[in-house]
């Protein structure tokens, strides 16, 4: 087996970062905040909370929750 093994050169190109992939914060700056999501109060140890509308969850335009007793239940 050993004589069939090809020993490749130990000189390989160094790994190079491929430019062109934008950072998350750059995309946020360019595209703005995602629609139908909004910040609410801070909870606990200063942790930012946020909610989303049924439109965000379902991808469809809805008039409101399917049941007023469950205002945040996704409509679909």
């Amino acid at each position, binding site marked *: 087996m050993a004589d069939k093994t090809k020993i490749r*050169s130990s000189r390989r190109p160094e790994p190079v970062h491929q430019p062109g992939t934008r950072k998350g*914060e750059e995309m946020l700056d360019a595209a703005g905040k995602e629609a139908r999501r909004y910040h609410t109060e801070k909870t606990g*140890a200063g942790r930012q909370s946020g909610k989303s509308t049924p439109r965000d969850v379902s991808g469809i335009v809805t008039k409101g929750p399917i049941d007023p007793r469950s*205002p945040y239940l996704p409509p679909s």
Partner: protein
Amino acid sequence: MAIKARREEPPTPSPQLVEMAWDPITRIVGSLGIYTKLDFQQRKVVECHSTSSIFRGYSIFMQGKDPRDSHFITSRICGICGDNHATCSVYTQNMAYGVRPPALGEWILNLGEAAEYMFDHNIFQENLVAVDYCEQMVRETNPGVLEMAEKTEAPNADVHGYRTIADIMRACNPFAGALYLEGLQMSRLTREKFCLMEGRHVHPSTLYPGGVGTAGTIQVFTDYLVRLMKYVEWMKKMVPLHDDLFNFFYQALPGYEKVGQRRVLLGCWGSFQDPNVCDYDYRTMDDWGRAMFVTPGIVVDGKLVTTSLIDINLGLRILLGSSYYEDWENERTFVDRDPLGNPIDKHHPWNQTTIPKPQKRDFQGNYSWVMSPRWYDGRDYLALDTGGGPLARLWVTALAGLVDLGGYTKATGQSVKIRLPKTATKPEVEFEWKIPQWSNTIERNRARTYFQAYAAAAALHFIDKALEEIRAGHTKTWNEFTVPKEAIGCGFHEAVRGVLSHHMVIENGKIANYHPYPPTPWNASVRDIYGTPGPYEDAVQGTSIFEENGPDNFKGIDILRTVRSFDPCLPCGVHMYLGEGKELKVVHSPTFGRP
């Protein structure tokens, strides 16, 4: 600090001493070698050295990387608890970036880590450790004990269904025993739970600084809960079963408590953050550390000496003495004061510079790639161990008496109570883990099964909390952050097998220094500059031999049980670096006949 080893001359070997080595130790991860001198007349291990023959080098190639990649890179340190590293790195980054995940993000992370504890402890206990106590193994090493097991009724037979201890042992037989096979099935369920929370096992894909990418929905938590309740039912059988099995060894082999016993020197860095308290600010780290749902702390000789994460951090020292590295005393100091103004030692992970120096193994000099992490209490450099993880976690949590998870778990000051609710076929059950008399092989293994139940109970609490957030409409799981140009951070967590810390220094927006310290560098550490042996060495040295075989067919079962009780994981022990990318030729060398 001088690095010259101060060692006494080795004692003149006794004529009845036999040198025996297990290299590699099987049924663990990585390359661990245990080299002993045994006195068969006295039935004792006289001397032990633990050695690891792999060098990795994460601390070297992390330099210059984008800090936001650190959790993805450090996750690859380990193929079984990579998520623990990712989590610890996320904690470290949260501190460095000053970002706090939304509460729901933290509960999801806690649920992922709870699933990891349930998975990893389960597969290790049922498929790797249990083999040391199975019928086949006991027949080969202690036939007299098996004979006694056949006649001994299992006290909890009505709960687990095995009439005698020998029946339990038969169920532990590898590949054929019922418990061995059930253990594999349970491991699958726990991995599924993990993937629901962190996207992928074992290298999470939805874990980031500032939160998680998992979409928190009622459905995802229900899917987790369905699997969790099956695991809870399994625990109701396995905790009493392991109690029966391990208690039997004390009964069958008087003096067995001496096997693997060492001084109680336990460290736990805490697990499961409380989003109501934790703000990831170093200056308030003591407060949010004590609010963790597994309490951080250090136990010395049975006394809880601290629960302060700041004290724990300041006392960290990475010593050399028997390792293949050069000292970094004259290298750069990255952090001279912590954010509270406390001085940071040159041998603290924030200031470590890794300088590998490959050399021949010499048990009178340097013999391992593992360094010697110690905790400095102001007087001594303590060779803490983790008790395989669960022993230290339960011991510290019990003594601190801080945890009360809404009735699911409660620390009482001398014990930890774990309440598991009604499941499909079993009623509600309460277990109580009591602080044992010894830090030894059997108690490390017993604690593991209790901590599996603890993790399950904690997960029930986390699901309640996550669903509260969902019902309030708080679906946000991730918060924005920016990477500062200059910052430091540290993260404290519990990898499955014990303490885990990450320390990072950022300069010019890139990593200037990064040092992960997982549990195995602590447990597998070697004799330091003061000659203090590491925990494996200490626990094996002086241990009694109960195996009935003589030197000719000696298996070393008591030694192997001891080493495995720490749940060794050598890829964590040293961190692979191949310099300029030299091609290595791989040669397969079968090792038939290895125990």
